[in-house]
């Protein structure tokens, strides 16, 4: 007697089998529990949206600096916005060829500094930021001393200032009315000699703010100039607005220097504070600054994540949203595959449909996403049908398997190119998407089909072929539910549930639906008796 491997008794007692099952159930339960609790945590605690439709606004801000350099070291430093209680900066880009870029924060101001050892000719520097409306509370930064430092003024300037200040002060009760009176005085049609002396002929908002800050400092009140842009619909060339911020009653209050109003529109993005210029540059000629504001729509879920970036919960640091946008779009599709695969498991193991290639229908379904369903099915049938005819012809040439497969692959690619050109000429642009079919998979399908054709006949081939197409169509329909796409992408932990379901199906030992038909003859005997 031959006994391979010595011991040939592999009978497994029933208890071992049930233990295996218990292990599986525990694993599936654990996976589901983790998946569901993560899912609930994200929806309830982190407010991840369950629906994909909600959209919100973000603004893309761009600054374009052009200047000429003259073969000297160039240094350009520009104020850039920072997170405020109204807006959060979710993304920033600094684009400049050959320049070193440095972002520094000094006294609460953010600055980007570009520098290069040598530059000649026209230079371009771009700054881009994506800004999101947040509205949240940020601790107010109090000025260090109770009273503002007195500005250094002398002569007529000091006298004019003192005269305006005492005049205004007389008609005011508190800081608020003082500022209001001051701005009214500065904006008066006949402001008087004192004001003209300080403001000059051109009464720009910026100048008014500067003078107001100076006067308030003289009165010991903390104030500063603020510069920003309004985020409106679309602005190719956005204008900077300047306003006054005064510290009163432990709060910074904004004043519009032209109207004296105690607030500024809340869609104004604060860019920088203080009297410094926005851009300071060394060895630069003909500097031009253009600022643009673009509004774009973004899905609410990304918004939630971007809010999350500000909150910085640990979970989000490792979410799919931390990936570059292009990679994200890859995963948007890739994460649908598990859904299709689970469905295919059900189709094959519970229903009992036979398909060519285990996962071929899922891959075909993915290309249906690009071609759209009817076109996809049509192109697939044309492609596989023609390929099959050519394969049956190649059969006569008696080729070896690998060269024959290669030949079919070449034919398939040729066919795809031909179909693209043909449909393009006919004005059927959808036909171009035939290029997205997985060609190697199609080649294998054709080869497999022709073997089944040879061995089991045309009927069986068509049956399995139809099974594959039906599976692909259903997989496509399931994977194209936008809700499903949203759910798996925002809540990838749901994959754990899919995994648990797949594992459980792996131990499904009941009849397949089509087996009921197959074995039906067996039940009939009983009925006869």
């Amino acid at each position, binding site marked *: *007697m*031959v*006994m*391979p*491997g010595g011991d*040939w008794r*592999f*009978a*497994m007692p*029933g208890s071992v*089998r049930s233990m295996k099952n218990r292990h599986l159930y525990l694993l599936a339960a654990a996976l589901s529990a983790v998946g569901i609790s993560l899912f609930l945590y994200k929806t309830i605690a982190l407010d991840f949206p369950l629906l994909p439709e909600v959209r919100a606004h973000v603004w893309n801000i761009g600054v374009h600096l052009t200047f000429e350099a003259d073969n000297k070291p160039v240094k350009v430093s520009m104020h850039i916005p920072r997170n405020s209680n109204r807006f959060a900066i979710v993304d920033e880009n600094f684009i400049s060829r050959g320049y070193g870029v440095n972002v520094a924060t000094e006294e609460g101001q953010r600055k980007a500094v570009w520098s290069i050892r040598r530059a000649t000719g026209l230079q371009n520097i771009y700054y881009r930021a994506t800004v999101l409306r947040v509205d949240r509370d940020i601790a107010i930064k109090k000025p260090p001393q109770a009273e503002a430092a007195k500005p250094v003024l002398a002569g007529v300037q000091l006298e004019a200032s003192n005269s305006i200040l005492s005049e205004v002060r007389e008609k005011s009760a508190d800081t608020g009315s003082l500022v209001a009176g001051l701005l009214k005085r500065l904006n008066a049609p006949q402001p008087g000699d004192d004001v003209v002396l300080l403001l000059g002929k051109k009464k720009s908002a910026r100048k008014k703010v500067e003078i107001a800050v100076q006067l308030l400092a003289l009165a010991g009140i903390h104030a500063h100039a603020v510069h920003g842009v309004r985020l409106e619909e679309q602005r190719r060339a956005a204008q900077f607005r300047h306003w006054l911020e005064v510290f009163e009653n432990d709060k910074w209050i904004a004043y519009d220097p032209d109207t004296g109003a105690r607030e500024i529109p809340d869609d104004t993005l604060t860019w920088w504070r203080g009297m410094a210029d926005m851009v300071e540059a060394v060895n630069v000629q003909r500097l031009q600054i253009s600022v643009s504001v673009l509004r774009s729509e973004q899905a609410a879920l990304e918004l939630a994540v971007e809010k999350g970036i500000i909150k910085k919960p640990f979970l989000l640091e490792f979410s799919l949203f931390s990936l570059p946008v292009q990679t994200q779009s890859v995963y948007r599709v890739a994460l649908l595959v598990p859904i299709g695969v689970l469905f295919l498991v059900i189709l094959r*193991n519970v229903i*009992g449909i036979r398909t060519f290639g285990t996962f071929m229908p899922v891959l075909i379904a993915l290309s249906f996403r690009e071609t759209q369903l009817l076109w996809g099915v049509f192109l697939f049938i044309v492609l596989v049908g023609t390929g099959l005819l050519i394969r049956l012809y190649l059969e006569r040439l*008696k080729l*070896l*398997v*690998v060269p024959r497969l290669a030949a079919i692959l070449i034919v398939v690619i040729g066919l795809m190119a031909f179909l693209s050109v043909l449909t393009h000429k006919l004005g059927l642009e959808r036909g171009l998407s035939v290029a997205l079919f997985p060609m190697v998979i199609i080649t294998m399908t054709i080869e497999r089909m022709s*073997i089944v054709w040879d*061995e*089991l*006949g045309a009927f069986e081939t068509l049956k399995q072929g139809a099974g594959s197409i039906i599976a692909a169509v259903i997989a496509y329909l399931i994977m194209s539910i936008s809700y499903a796409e949203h759910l798996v992408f925002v809540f990838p932990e749901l994959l754990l549930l899919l995994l648990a379901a797949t594992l459980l199906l*792996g*131990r*499904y*030992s*009941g*009849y*397949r*639906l089509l*087996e*009921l038909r*197959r*074995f*039906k*003859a*067996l*039940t009939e*005997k*009983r009925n006869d008796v």
Partner: protein
Amino acid sequence: MFRIKKQLSEIGVLGLNRRNAEYTLQYNQRRLYPLVDDKLQTKKLALKAGIAVPELYGVVEAEHQVRQVAGVLKSYPDFVIKPSRGSGGEGILVIAGRSKDLYRGVDGVLLDAEEVGYHICNIISGMYSLGGQPDKALIEYRVQFDPLFGAISYQGVPDIRVIVFLGVPVMSMARLPTRMSGGKANLHQGAIGAGIDIATGTTLTAVWRNKIVAEHPDTGNPVTGVRISNWDTLLHIAARCYELTGLGYIGVDLVLDKDKGPLILELNARPGLSIQIANRAGLLPRLKKVEQHHTVLQRIDDRVFFSKEQFSA
């Protein structure tokens, strides 16, 4: 639909999922599969154990050997070419005789040496093997089947499939090729499946394309009540295949040669389920019975006795 499901469960019909999950996966160790998936290995194993198999004329392992085939085959008027790792009877070429330089297939079609060589090349490059792995082509003795079967098969090789579970033959059927099956013995290709009473070796009802038939559709001879000669020997050989391979759940395919008696054609680690239709009985009750008693069924004689006693029709 649920009614059918309930009835099938009552009969104890084994479904594909259950066969895989509870029988082949549990009782058939993966590492032992090559012993049965590769017919060459099965043949060597059987010869070593002294079990008769169709004589091997030659093995073609590489394409350059194809040219030598004609020389080797000169002395044999008929032979069979099959892939060593084929499945489901695919890729088997039966040469029944010669006509001058040409080979004659069972269906009378003449093939030249080049066509036979092409077939061998296809086999070697893995066209018929599981997973497309490179394969070997076996050239072996063409079984001169017992006249008993001559009357009830059309071309091809009628064979006897025995399901052996833990060394106990549990169910058996004869597979009779028809014109429709093109000489192949696969039920879904149109062969007749006739259940066999394990106790006596007599064919029971026969099923053709899911319908009960009394006669062979091509020869008109009755297919039920045919008594298979050497039945005991056949059961013993089948039962021994458990020790031979170590696989708990197998299908043993045997042929009855008119001179050499029962020969093992091949073993199958994932035997099909149609045998239940041919026997009009479910496998599950029999498998469960074996699971209960197999610890005391050590000797082959005991197992065959147990089988004949328990599973008679």
